[in-house]
């Protein structure tokens, strides 16, 4: 556990500056700062954290605590990279006045999250520049699913068709091109409305949440041990990252000490998940500019890792490996050697794949200066992960807020500023190389220090999760920062589980990156972000 001492001076400073406006403040046992303040002070505190401590507002969500505390809370999660810690600020919302002050105008990064609070809790975001529904589609009845008095199994009237009013884009020769929700490829559903004049895209409106499955509500209905499997199904391509974030949140809430061997195994598997997804994306980007041969090679490498996953975890997507407290089984000597051998083989074959792509001038020509996301826009929208690092956002949870075994491993975080498809590809290429190196280091540590790993050595023993505990779980998934925030209830259940997939943060950036590009380049631009619909919609 990373109890960060860097937060204590920050809390002292905030106490000095905001004095009586701070209603309560404490550092939790796992080193997260929890502050409750008067809603009026919120924007001032937010600005202060930004300016003075380089904080990043990474999550905004609500909680229905009417039963216990007689109010709603809105929570704001600030990541403070220099202090390697998180500050969670909450404000009380009285049920008689169900509204909160919107921060979107100052911090556009929270646009969708504030609107989601409106949809899910019926709290109004005062001053929001575009307060329309985002999570619940326009035809939904007037329900707010995350309210405690809304029953999970409520039967709603059947879907009658989208009645969403898109923004009008007018002018001579302007056409609208609607696409989806069922797409042409084997991908997830969502609706894109392109406004075009000739070939270039003037404006792209993105309508998501077609795959909304009630996941956050479901977490409140099942034992936390079942929740691990639900976490694996938030976004299938990030099964292991999401389940790790979920387990870590509960381990922190329960004050568990996860054995080092389990942390090393998680690290290995997280990197394998990164590799198979990055390799697949590299191939898919090549396909989208018609370099299909490169994709055939990439898919072989992806299969190489998926089969390795099966041999290490019994499942090709690494499902069923995580558990609260550690992992379900250790790795045998034979499996570790297998992992080493595959990495040795991958290294050479991956270099050849990269060489193939980078020596194809016609491919590079299509990728360079395509779908540019400027560092300025990326910063304003709070873009994270691969897309952020290609646009100058130097952020990596593994380095800034170490978890699992990353504290003791050496790796480089690639950052570029060009922000085009080519550089999102380059970030992936660099990261695959770093992942192979991380795996090498973790395997060394695992085989030196933890040669014998009986079942007991890979899981912390626990029986009861203390109720009423709050904690964050954070993971740098292959796409970017994944956050889970939990508040525990009695009987190993959850009062609230907030999920934030990096996709939610990054979707609006796609609208910006595509502007001025031609529609035929949309698939490759979209692929270079490769955002999860399911992770966004939950």
């Amino acid at each position, binding site marked *: 556990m990373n109890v960060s001492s860097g937060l204590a001076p920050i809390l002292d400073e905030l106490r000095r500056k905001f004095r009586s406006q701070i209603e309560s403040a404490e550092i939790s046992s796992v080193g997260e700062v929890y502050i409750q303040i008067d809603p009026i002070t919120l924007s001032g505190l937010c600005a202060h954290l930004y300016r003075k401590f380089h904080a990043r507002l990474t999550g905004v969500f609500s909680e229905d605590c009417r039963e216990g505390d007689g109010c709603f809370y809105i929570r704001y999660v600030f990541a403070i990279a220099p202090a390697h810690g998180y500050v969670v600020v909450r404000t009380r919302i009285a049920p008689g006045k169900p509204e909160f002050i919107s921060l979107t105008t100052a911090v556009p990064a929270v646009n969708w999250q504030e609107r989601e609070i409106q949809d899910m809790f019926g709290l109004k975001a005062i001053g929001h520049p575009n307060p329309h529904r985002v999570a619940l589609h326009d035809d939904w009845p007037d329900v707010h699913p995350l309210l405690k008095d809304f029953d999970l199994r409520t039967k709603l009237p*059947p*879907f009658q068709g989208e009645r969403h009013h898109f923004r009008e884009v007018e002018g001579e020769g302007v056409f609208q091109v609607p696409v989806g929700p069922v797409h042409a490829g*084997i991908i997830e559903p969502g609706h894109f409305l392109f406004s075009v004049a000739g070939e270039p895209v003037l404006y792209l409106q993105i309508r998501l949440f077609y795959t909304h499955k009630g996941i956050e509500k479901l977490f409140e209905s099942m034992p936390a041990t079942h929740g691990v499997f639900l976490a694996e199904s938030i976004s299938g391509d990030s099964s292991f990252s999401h389940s790790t974030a979920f387990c870590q949140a509960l381990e922190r809430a329960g004050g568990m000490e996860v054995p080092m061997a389990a942390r090393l195994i998680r690290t290995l598997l997280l990197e394998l998940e990164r590799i198979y997804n990055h390799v697949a994306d590299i191939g898919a980007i090549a396909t989208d500019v018609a370099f299909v041969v490169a994709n*055939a090679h990439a898919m072989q490498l992806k299969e190489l890792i998926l089969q390795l996953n*099966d*041999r290490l975890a019994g499942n*090709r997507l690494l499902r069923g490996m995580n558990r609260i407290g550690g992992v379900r089984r250790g790795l045998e000597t034979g499996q570790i050697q297998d992992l080493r051998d595959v990495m040795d083989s991958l290294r050479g074959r991956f270099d050849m794949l990269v060489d193939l792509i980078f020596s194809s001038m016609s491919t590079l020509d299509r990728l360079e200066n395509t779908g540019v996301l400027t560092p300025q826009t990326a910063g304003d929208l709070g873009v994270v992960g691969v897309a952020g690092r290609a646009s100058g956002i130097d952020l990596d949870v593994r380095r800034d807020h170490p978890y699992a075994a990353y504290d003791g491993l050496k790796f480089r975080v690639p950052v570029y500023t060009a922000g085009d498809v080519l550089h999102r590809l380059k970030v992936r290429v660099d990261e695959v190389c770093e992942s192979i190196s991380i795996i090498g280091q973790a395997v060394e540590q695992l085989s030196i220090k933890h040669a014998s790993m009986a079942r007991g050595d890979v899981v912390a023993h626990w029986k009861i999760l203390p109720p009423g505990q709050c904690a964050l779980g954070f993971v740098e998934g292959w796409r970017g920062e994944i956050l889970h925030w939990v508040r525990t209830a009695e009987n190993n259940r959850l009062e609230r589980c907030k999920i934030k997939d990096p996709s939610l943060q990054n979707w609006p950036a796609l609208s910006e990156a595509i502007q001025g590009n031609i529609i035929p380049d949309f698939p490759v631009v979209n692929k270079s972000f490769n955002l999860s619909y399911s992770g966004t919609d939950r």
Partner: protein
Amino acid sequence: MFKILRQSFNAGVVTTDYPAKPVETSPIFRGRPVFDFSRWKDARPAAEICPTSAIEVKDDSDARMVTVDYGKCIFCGLCADASPEKAIRISRECELAVQNRADLVIQAKYKLNRDGCQDHLIEICKTPSISASAVEVAGKRFKEEIAHILGRSLHIREVDAGSCNGCEIEIVNLTGPVYDIERFGIHFVASPRHADMLLVTGPVTRNMELALRKTYEATPDPRLVVAVGACGCSGGIFGENYASLGGVDKVIPVDVYIPGCPPCPQALLHGILLAVQRLQQKLIKSRGRSV
């Protein structure tokens, strides 16, 4: 150009021999849990630990009905850990597709002890499913059947009706060089209007219901629907809730169910193969003659 050719030449043939040869999964692959019902003394711990209620227990005075539903199973393997008498074994079987939803369900009736444990097995109620040999024969005739019925090609439109995208990962793998579904004359197409089969994933969310119906209506007859994964078969871990309808057959008729979370590429191939058989039956029925 030379580099491209050399690399392809060096790669050689990478395509799997499946279905001519059996599936090769790892020794620890978690496939179908196999139940030794007569040995099972207490089903309650397994039912309690199962995240998707694929194992359910219903007691009626001194009798107990245990229901096992492979359509709900996510193959986590927890049930095997919850049976100290070793009545549950996690096998490596993955070819689990069936034509009838009921074929995925097994029920076992027990006489109960006073302490709530199972005294002895009374009977096992299970519909006989497609035998392994039938599928093997189908595998050999697969290519000819497609050639015969559909003029050498089966066109599939994939529809994600709210999946977590896990099933999509494996479906995409079917199109790669290793599983290479095109070797059977099967193609994934961009529009339902070109499709013979809809391969549907996800529990069908409320927001995708209409899109799924419209896609189905746009697919010309005779059409096949294959429900993929625990979610497609039953709603999986999402089940039925305000946003999830709980399975593809809640919305459109389904011809074949492929369990798995997600099903591995071979399991998908096996299910698609079963569906082609089903198509033949459909054609006989609708045209009144053999094809």
